[in-house]
């Protein structure tokens, strides 16, 4: 199961971003270590949600979106495409916390 979280800086100890489609970077968790990538649509004036969703789900095969809050359009697209959503708790503060919980899962 490929899971994606929005992060604010390009590092493994980055804080999680409050935004999803307009976050600066994403971390994709599939194996033990997360893969970091820059968000090419972070500064798009329009339709950032739709483009990010297409990139992550249709092109990269992500099956779970995890964030503090997801925008209306991304939520609608996720529900329509049967992509799982995780609304993270406030005690999960950074990428390391997500990796910790994720590795506990294995």
């Amino acid at each position: 199961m490929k899971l994606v979280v929005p992060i604010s800086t390009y590092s493994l100890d980055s804080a999680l971003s409050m935004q999803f489609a307009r976050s600066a970077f994403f971390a994709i968790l599939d194996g033990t270590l997360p893969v970091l990538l820059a968000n090419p649509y972070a500064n798009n004036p329009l339709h950032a949600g739709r483009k990010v969703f297409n990139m992550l789900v249709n092109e990269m095969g992500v099956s779970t979106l995890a964030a503090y809050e997801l925008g209306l359009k991304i939520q609608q697209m996720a529900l329509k495409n049967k992509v799982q959503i995780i609304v993270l708790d406030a005690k999960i503060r950074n990428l390391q916390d997500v990796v910790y919980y994720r590795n506990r899962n294995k």
Partner: protein
Amino acid sequence: MARPRQISKIQSPPRVKGFMPLGHYTQEPERIVMLHLEEYEAIRLLDYEHLSQEEASGFMQVSRPTLTRIYERARFKIASALTEGRQVIIEGGTAIFEGRWFACLACRSKFNDPVGKGAECCPLCGSNQYERVKG
């Protein structure tokens, strides 16, 4: 007998269970403001997502006048909590979630079940201790 309230649809559960004021406040149950889930959703769609009342009523599957009433109730509750320094708890009401939602008791994240097969474990931490989030 009064007509029962219309059931509205909300997309996902709120991130937090409520809010507490800083400084001097009371925890007496009668002083707590209960913000219903449909009221939270109305505030989110109209004031946070900047949807029109027409669009928001479509998302919540209620008529526009019903949405207006829900929104007015929500604003009054939030205003009274702010001015009187009262705690806000978000729960209850006549709302159902879009899809089934669960709350993990280990990592406290909330997750949905997009395919409707039922959740086996938390997709984040793998714990099988979770409970259904009721609308």
